[in-house]
Each structure stands twice: as C-alpha cells, then as structure tokens.
C-alpha cells in the first residue's frame, strides 16, 4: 500500500487544477441532457409524432447513427433513450479521455510527476490512482446530477429504475474508456500519441457497433461501446452492461497499474528507437512539418477512408424503404420506388457529408494548432531566428492543414461511393459526391480560418473553435430530431447546404461564407505577424 501514499493529496491537487474544466463539462453534459429530456415531451408527446419518429429511427441509416430501436411499443422516454444513448456516450468518452490524458501522461510530460515522486514522500502509484479517482468522482457527479434531473423531467414512459440506469450507464461508459486510456498512457511516452491510441481504440469500437447494429445487433456485444445500447432503458432496464463496464474498467486500471510499476518514469513501455544521423530531406519549416506530420496524416486519411467504407457498406439497407408493402410498390411503380430509395440514400450521403467534414476539419485544424503548440513548447524559437518570415511559417501550416482536410474529405467520400455503389443495385453517380464535396468546402475553410484568426490574435482562446465546430455539428445532426427553431438551425454553417446532394448548391451562401473566411484569415495573418511569440 505504500505505493499509494498521498493519493488523496494528489487527488485534491487534480481537482484544484481541473475544477473549471470539470464544472464546464459537467454543466454542459448533464445540464443539456436533462434539458433535452425536460423538453422532449413537447416534441414527441402524442402517438402520431411518436410513430413518425419511430419509423425514422427504424431505418438502417438511423440504426447506423444512433443504434437500433428494438421494442415494438414506444413511448416518449424510449425514443429519448434511443436517440441519446450512443450520442451522449460519445461525449462521455471524449470528456473522460481528456481528463485521463491530462491527469496521467500530460502531467508526467510536463515534469510535474517527476518532481512529486522524486522529491516527496508520494507513492509511485499515487498519480495514476489519483487520476482514476478523479474520473470516478467526475462521472459519479454526472450520474447524480443526471439521475436527479431525469427524475424531475419525468418523461411519459420513464421510470426511476430506467432514469438511474441511463445516468449510471453513461457515467460508466465514460469511466471505462478513461481507464483504458490509462493503459495507453503507460505504453507511449507522450500525450499526443496517447490521444491517438485513445481515438483509434474508440473508433474501432464505434465501427464495430455500427456495422453490427445494421447487420446483426446480437454481435454488438463484441464492442464495449455497443454495450451502452444493451441496457434497453425503459424497456427491460438491463443493468448487466453497467456491471460489464465496471469490470472492464477495473481490469483496465489493473493492467495500467501493472504496466506502470514495470516502467521508468518519463518512459513508455514501447521503446523509442534511434534513427539516422543525418538528413538531406529536412530543408526548412515546410519539409519539417511534412516530416513530423506524415504518419498522423496518413493515419487520418486511411482511418477516414475506412470510416467511409463502413458507412458505404450499409447503403443497400439504407436504400430499403421501411414501408415496402405491396400496395405502396404498386402505387409508386418500380421507377417510383427506385427514385424514393435513391433519395433516401442521397439524404444519408448529405448527413455523412457533415460528419466527414467535421472530422476532416479536426484533422486539418490539428496541424494548424500544432504551430501554436510548437511555439509554446519552445521548438519554434530555433526556427524563428532563421531567415524565414512569420507569414511563410503560418502559410506553410495553413496550407498543409487545409490540403490535408480537403484530401481527407474527398478520400472519405470516394470510399463511401465505391463501397456504397458495390452494395447498391443502382449505383449513385459520382456527381452527387462531388456536389457534396464542393458544398462542404466553404464550411471547411470557414472553420479553418476561424482557427487561424485565433492563433493570430488570441491563441489562448483557440479552443473556442472546437466549441463552434461541435455546436454546429450538434445543431445540424441533431437539430431536426430535436425540432430546433429555424433561426437556431441557421447558426450552423452546414444549414446552408442541407439540401445537397439532392439539390444543386446554392451559390449565394458560398460567397458570403468564403468572404467571412477570408476576412478571418487576413486578421489571423496580420495578428500573427505582430504579436509576441510565447516563451
């Protein structure tokens, strides 16, 4: 037990450090969840509304996005559970990842862990245990707020067992993924790589969930992320997944502990290899950026192409009409049915376009963000004292980031098309995908320019870009199901192209989105030239 000495003192320090982050995340995660629940009866109150949404949710496209709606009889609460479970679990995972990395590898990287362990009577396992406890408490608070809030929201069809199961299972999925992240923190020596491992793992579990939900929901048990659907909230209220999450989380923590005691501080289990003694390739900032980013860029493109392919692989089921009774077939004729099916797939492509664009922006923006990360870490002080202007430096990063994002987006759409067409009886023309691609470009560039603007004038606030991106995504992806008012939908830049690819692109929003983007970009560049570089 000596190795756990002072865990609670470190835990207190963690809370002191993270309290703003924790408060904001918990308020948004729990608050928004309860707010949606409270409002839900107004949206899906009567039977007719329920039937309409149930029919939508039973389509394979919705199954792929939200998980299956298995039960025959439906209520407001059941619809809520189906729409929210997978969606909110994603946010819980992101939240816990960010806490777990911040509490483990990031602290070690900054040298804090070495100081605490080396110079103070603190147990070797105390930092790791403190991180695990911090996550446990944060998720516990989420569960309590959400559980109480849901009780007050009192949706038709809800019951207190289901309310608490929902709150606890969301907390549990987050905590478990956080514990798995602690394993990755032991494997590699820097927080950046830990995040990559984290999201690769999450991506895999998500893909398995999606593909099995569409093909055979019984197999969804193979993905830990899929367990969240197996709770059958408000139907059977199955607590087994919560138990599974806890077991997996404890096992993961145990593995992390075992790895931790067997490694040196500041090192990872996976050893760093040596390399070449000379380099002819590295000539300046541009080649350096390429060299540093090439693996992760490739990883993004391949990963996203796989994502596109897996969405494409369910196209044939998405095309199927939910209501394909002989009467309807007769009324529409075979051409009519085909046209309807095609539209159904096309609107799915429209939703995919938004998802892919959000992810492509993340991939590209991370490159541009790296300019500031390198500045803060002091790498750039050696570059900035060579004869390369700041404009050149920023241009290099912006160009790389934008090109990467564009390539990711197009590659993903193309693999979606190729795999999708192979499953469809009547293939979709590339023209639709190109239209989708072109429509998303102004949006993509707008988000990139916003980031450049922040990096140029207020780099400390650059994370606002993620809030804007996430907000726009939630509004466009979720807004219609939430029945958001039209003015709120217009806040998201995606709104202006929501008829694409079924309809042509409206040229007007393209111009003003690009104009805003250009203004932001110029502000960013001028600001970057004229601000002090961080030390």
């Amino acid at each position, binding site marked *: 037990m000596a190795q756990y000495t002072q865990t609670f003192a470190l835990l207190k320090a963690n809370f002191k450090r993270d309290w703003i982050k924790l408060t904001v995340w918990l308020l948004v995660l729990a608050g928004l969840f309860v707010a949606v629940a409270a409002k839900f009866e107004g949206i899906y109150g009567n039977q007719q509304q329920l039937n309409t949404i149930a029919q939508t949710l039973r389509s394979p496209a919705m199954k792929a996005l939200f998980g299956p709606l298995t039960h025959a009889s439906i209520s407001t609460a059941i619809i809520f559970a189906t729409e929210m479970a997978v969606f909110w679990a994603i946010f819980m995972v992101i939240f816990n990842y960010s806490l777990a990395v911040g509490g483990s590898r990031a602290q070690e990287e900054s040298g804090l862990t070495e100081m605490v362990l080396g110079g103070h009577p603190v147990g070797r396992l105390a930092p790791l245990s403190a991180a695990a406890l911090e996550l446990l408490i944060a998720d516990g608070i989420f569960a309590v707020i959400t559980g109480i809030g849901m009780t007050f929201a009192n949706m038709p069809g809800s019951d207190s067992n289901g309310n608490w199961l929902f709150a606890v299972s969301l907390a549990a999925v987050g905590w478990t993924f956080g514990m798995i992240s602690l394993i990755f923190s032991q494997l590699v020596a820097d927080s950046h790589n830990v995040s990559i491992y984290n999201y690769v793992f999450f991506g895999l579990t998500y893909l398995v969930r999606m593909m099995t939900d569409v093909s055979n929901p019984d197999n969804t048990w193979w993905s830990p992320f899929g367990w969240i659907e197996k709770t059958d909230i408000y139907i059977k209220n199955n607590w087994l997944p919560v138990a599974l999450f806890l077991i997996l989380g404890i096992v993961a923590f145990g593995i992390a502990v075992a790895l931790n005691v067997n490694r040196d501080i500041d090192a990872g289990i996976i050893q760093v290899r040596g390399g070449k003694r000379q*380099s002819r390739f590295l000539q300046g900032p541009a080649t350096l950026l390429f060299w540093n980013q090439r693996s992760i860029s490739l990883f993004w493109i391949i990963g996203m192409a796989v994502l596109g392919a897996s969405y494409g692989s369910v196209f044939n089921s998405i095309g199927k009409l939910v209501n394909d009774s002989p009467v309807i077939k007769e009324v529409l004729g075979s051409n009519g049915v085909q046209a309807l099916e095609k539209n159904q797939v096309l609107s799915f492509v429209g939703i995919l376009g938004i998802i892919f664009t959000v992810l492509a922006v993340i991939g590209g923006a991370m490159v541009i963000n790296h300019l500031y990360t390198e500045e803060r870490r*002091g790498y750039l002080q050696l570059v900035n004292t060579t004869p390369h*202007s700041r404009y050149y430096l920023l241009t290099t990063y912006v160009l790389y980031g934008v090109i990467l994002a564009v390539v990711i987006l197009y590659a993903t759409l193309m693999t979606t098309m190729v795999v999708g067409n192979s499953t469809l009886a009547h293939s979709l023309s590339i023209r639709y995908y190109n239209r989708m691609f072109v429509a998303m470009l102004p949006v993509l560039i707008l988000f990139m320019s916003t980031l450049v603007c922040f990096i140029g004038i207020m780099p400390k606030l650059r994370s606002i870009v993620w809030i804007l991106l996430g907000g726009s995504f939630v509004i466009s992806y979720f807004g219609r199901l939430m029945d958001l008012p039209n003015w709120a939908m217009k806040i998201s830049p995606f709104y202006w192209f929501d008829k694409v690819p079924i309809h042509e692109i409206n040229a007007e929003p393209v111009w003003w989105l690009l104009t805003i983007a250009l203004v932001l970009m110029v502000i960013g560049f001028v600001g970057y030239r004229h601000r002090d570089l961080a030390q």
Partner: protein
Amino acid sequence: MNHTLVLDVKGLKKSFGKFEALKDVNLTLHPGEVLGFIGPNGAGKSTTIRVILGLIKSSGGSAKVFGKDAWKESVTIHKDLAYVPGDVYLWPNLTGGQTIDLLLHMSGQTHTGRTDDLIKEFKLDTSKKNRTYSKGNRQKVALIAAFSTDVSLYVFDEPTSGLDPLNELIFQQKVKQLKESGKSVLLSSHILSEVEKMCDTIAIIREGKVIETGSLESMQHLTRNSVAVTTSEPLVKLQNMPGVYQLDFKNDQKTTAEFSVDSDQIGNVMAALSANKILQLKTTPPTLEDLFLRYYHSDNDQKVGE
C-alpha cells in the same frame, strides 16, 4: 559596413501587461567583440535577447542589429545570425543529427567537416531521438548547429547551463575561435568566471535596467581593491583615512589588517602604509563576482561605492 555597430540597443522598454520587464536597456556591440550580458534570473536578459531577435516587440526605445530594426527587418537580420537559447527544446521525433542538419539548412548552411568535428568534440550521439536527450545534450545540438554556421553575429543565452565542465571548456574555446576570426558574440550568462574569461565588454542588468557597461578593467577601476597588509608599526591611522572601508585588524597590535580601498585613493593609502614599514602586502582587484554582488546588494538609488 565595418563601422556599423553590430548591436545598438537604446533605452529599450518592454512591458507584459502591467509588468515592466525592461525599463531602460542600453547595449552596444562592436564588430569582432564579445559582449557579456550578466544579471540574475528575472532581471531581463532573455527578454532583451528576445527583442533583439525580433521574437517579441519592444514597447519603447530602439533595438538595431547590423543597423537594421530588430522587429521590422528580422528576416534579413537572421540571415547573418545564429542563436542558442538557454532552454533548448527540440522536436521529439527527430534525431540529434537530423536536427543539426535541419537547423543548418534553415539558415542556408550545409553540413561540413566542421560540423563533424564539432559533433566529435562535444561527444554527441547523433543517432538518438531528441526526446531521449538530457538538457545538456539538447544544448549540444543547438551549439553544434550554431558553431558550424558561418555568420557575423552569434547570440548565446545562458548556453552552458546544462553542460559539464569539460564541454563548458570546449564552448569557451569555440567562442575564442569565433572572436579570433572576427565574429561578434553576445553572451548572456550568470556563470561569472565564464564571462570574465571570454568577454571584452560586460553589461550588467538589474530589474530591467542596464546599470553598468564597460570592460572588466574599467569596472574594477571604478570600485575597490581589497588589501591585506602586515606592517611593523600599528596601522591606527587607517581608521580615519578617506577611501578605506571594511577595515579589520587581524591582531591586537593592529599591525595586520584587511580592508578595501577606493581605486582613486590607492596612492594615498599606499603612502601611508609605506610610512609604517610594510612587511607583507597583497592587493587583489575585485573579481566579477565581487562586482556583481556589490551591484546587487546596493539599493536601487544607491550608487556603487557609497
């Protein structure tokens, strides 16, 4: 061009919000000179250097390198300048060798025989990844790149803080070679013996102001020498002599004494001592450390020697 000052900083100010990091910094560096820039942590050495390098913008005064504005013409200036920061941070995924070549290429230089010699002299294993290097090894990477760069001005900001004494010695030799080949060097340091050995001119900074500039000799001249003396007759009259401070008799007869004396009074004091028949005499000029401590222990409004 030879008559242009390499470095000309006048009345430089820099504020971060309300905090005035630099209040009044004046520095001049002539071609072929080594300028030592000393002061404790937080006095403003690195801030001054960062302004000179065009990394941050001054709030007042002027900073010129090669006669050009340090902020506006930073790119042109950097063509003829090499810099080694005190805390060297390097891209974790590159090896030391790749980093050296990258830094050389970025300054328009190439990997030469000189580079290989430097790698050997500093004993750096260039096949290792930067993330595995200690602080001293990262400094070696930056130093090797800087020393194998052929430019007119070298700026070192506490470059030896992580080096062992052997490597520190190599550093001193290399700076000497730069000086011999007519290069200019700005060396900020708080290792005073290093500055004492290498620098032609010394500037002392304190709380954002350069409070003294000049050669070590001229600074020594401004202040007091310490004297240890034994005479055959008691030295009582020293007690009332002008220019004598910290008088301390070492024996009851008052024939052995230690004291410090103002440089301009040394003639009178010597005459007085000779009158008492000197048996033993040792005078030592103040070391840079004495000077430094004296400057730093005196209050803000007190001048040296008071």
